[in-house]
């Protein structure tokens, strides 16, 4: 194929609006773009003038899938800016809430968005009649994940109870016990998920890249809620307040979302595979077993295995939630007042949400009014890496004798493997064109 133009308008089964454009002229790849066409939303602008405590409830509305993740990063940034230290109980409840979202998002992504590709259908809907057990299993796990969020935070999409200083609600012991029972039952569903997944053929493609994620330094737990920034190329941890040392934002013509590079690489990957590659040692033993059974080993450079890493993390999240519930119940849940701010200044918060590491930064004036903000979203960070993968994949695809339709599907699958959340990604600040 000497001249090929692949132009996918509105890639489906991703969150948000994006197009793929690939141009091959006389056998040479001339353009490879993942175009972000999502509407601009101006969150950074309209946060200005709002009150300090509103930031989590405003910024969770950036994205319906990563709502809890935005809440956690935002509330930590506000707490850093106001020198609030929350209780251990609050931290544990927030971690449990975030576990619910990690599980919810991974199940949604693996079953609803990615698996249809492997089974050659356009959506999960036909699977309801051809593979009813698979769909019911997915819904059962998704519901459990939702219920975790609902019991701790009030609901999954835009949690209510998280407030700077703690939480405005404490779940009852019976509710947590009931969740624990269901989490234990979910082990079998996850086992079946791994069994189903093992039968799918994951495209064979590798390209070395840098993986960036949070890490709990020392013998701590596998990082989601907080931690320090590490990468496969620079394992020295960086405090999240210094995130600009690790993440450099740039803007490109064809995308309404910023691209990112790191101090080490022109592009990098964030998300489940990045966390897995950086924090494998801290996974729960059952999650390590699942990784072994699925043949996933760190450091894995095949982006299609992001889905595999999501399954491994789901196993971890279920086990970690059981442990968190045990600890919360042993310590006994108590109603705690919100911790009050002692100053108003600047603060950064970071959470490793389903799609990867996320940063929120705010500046407050002396009355606690937000005067500036910067938000760095996982998909923005992955965009340059997705394009680099597409570029690296194209020659092999062109030589393979695949039809244009097959190549297009493969490129869409790659985009979906990253689980991009394009509505999150539209955000700009300090524009500088490259």
């Amino acid at each position, binding site marked *: 194929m000497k001249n090929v133009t692949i132009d996918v308008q*509105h890639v*489906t*089964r*991703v*969150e*948000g*609006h994006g197009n793929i454009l690939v141009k091959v002229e006389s056998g040479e790849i001339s353009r490879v773009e993942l175009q972000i066409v999502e*509407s*601009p*939303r*101006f969150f*950074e*602008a*309209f946060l*200005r*003038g*709002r*009150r300090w405590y509103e930031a989590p*409830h*405003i910024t969770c*509305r950036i*994205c*319906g*899938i990563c*709502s809890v993740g935005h809440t956690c990063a935002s509330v930590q940034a506000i707490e850093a800016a106001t020198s609030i230290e929350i209780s251990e109980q609050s931290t544990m409840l927030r971690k449990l809430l975030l576990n619910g979202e990690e599980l919810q998002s991974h199940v*949604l992504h693996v079953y*609803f*968005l990615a698996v249809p590709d492997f089974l050659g259908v*356009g*959506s*999960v*809907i036909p699977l*309801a009649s051809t593979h009813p057990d698979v*769909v*019911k299993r997915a*819904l*059962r796990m*998704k519901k459990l994940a*939702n219920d975790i969020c609902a019991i701790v935070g*009030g*609901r*999954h*999409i*835009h949690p*209510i*109870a998280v*407030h700077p200083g703690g*939480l*405005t*609600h404490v779940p009852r012991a019976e509710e947590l016990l009931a969740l624990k029972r269901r989490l234990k039952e979910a082990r079998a569903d996850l086992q079946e998920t791994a069994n189903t997944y093992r039968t799918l053929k994951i495209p064979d493609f590798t390209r070395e890249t840098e993986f960036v994620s949070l890490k709990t330094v020392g013998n701590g737990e596998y990082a989601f809620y907080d931690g320090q920034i590490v990468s496969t190329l620079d394992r020295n941890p960086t405090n999240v307040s210094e995130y600009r040392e690790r993440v450099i934002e740039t*803007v490109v013509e064809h995308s*309404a979302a910023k691209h990112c590079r790191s101090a080490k690489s022109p592009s990098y990957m964030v998300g489940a595979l990045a966390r897995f590659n950086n924090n494998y040692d801290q996974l729960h033993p059952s999650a390590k077993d699942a990784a072994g059974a699925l043949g996933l080993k760190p450091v894995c450079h095949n982006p299609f295995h992001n889905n595999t890493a999501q399954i491994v993390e789901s196993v971890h999240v279920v086990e970690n939630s059981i442990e968190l519930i045990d600890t919360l119940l042993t310590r006994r849940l108590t109603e705690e007042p919100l911790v009050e701010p002692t100053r108003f200044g600047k603060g950064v918060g970071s959470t490793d949400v389903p799609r990867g590491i996320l940063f929120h930064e705010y500046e407050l004036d002396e009355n606690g009014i937000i005067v500036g903000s910067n938000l760095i979203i996982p998909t923005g960070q992955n965009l340059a890496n997705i394009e680099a993968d597409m570029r690296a994949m194209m020659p092999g695809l062109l030589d393979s004798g695949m039809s244009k339709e097959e190549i297009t599907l493969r490129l869409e699958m790659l985009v979906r493997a990253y689980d991009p959340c394009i*509505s999150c990604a539209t*955000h*700009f*600040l*300090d*524009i*500088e*064109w490259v």
Partner: protein
Amino acid sequence: MKPRIAIFSLTSCEGCSLAILELEDCLLDILGAVEIVNFREGMTERSWDIDIGFVDGAVSTPEDMKEIEHFRECSKVLVAIGACATHGGLNTLKNYQDESDYRKYVYGDQAARFPTIPAQPLSGVVDVDYQLPGCPMVKEEFLEFVKVVLTGRTWHLPEDPVCVECKRNGTLCLYEKGIMCLGPVTRAGCNAICPSYGAKCEGCRGVVHDEALKAAGINLREQYDVDLQDVLADLRMFGAYQEKTLP
């Protein structure tokens, strides 16, 4: 023939579309009763012959303007789902700032490349048949709506304020703790979920009727020591009330 359903998103977080997928217990039944013919987040196939079109998101760009007109033409019944679509939602917060300023703050000297218009609800541009408010919409209300409409009945939103549900739940009123809550002026239907999780109602379902707003204004002025600017800021959060003063 099963009714042909489509789900679209304009400028939004797509949380309201995703909320449909969070009806796990009845998702398979819904899929049995209707045919989903267009849902970009969930499927590859797309058709434009639509009986009921659900739209989340506000009209906030020239592109949104074109799209909503197209959706309207293609959908026999058009339903606005969520605060963005019913009231403009959080997107309206930019409307209070100077347009060139907020564009510059976010896009620098490239502002011209990203066209935007003041955010408005769908009803500002096209005729909307039904409104399911909330940020996100209440998924149980969505389910009830689907049942009612599929059986040919007419749908009505609750006409009570959130306080009615809150009192029924036996929740201790937040005013007792000195917290200003928008429950008295906001349309019920969410089962007063925020107060039952210890947080004030932020008015995401819109103002229930003008009289409630008037009464609240009088009460707040006479009985409580609150800054009315704070009340107005709360009312703006989801586009519920966008005037400069309380009636």
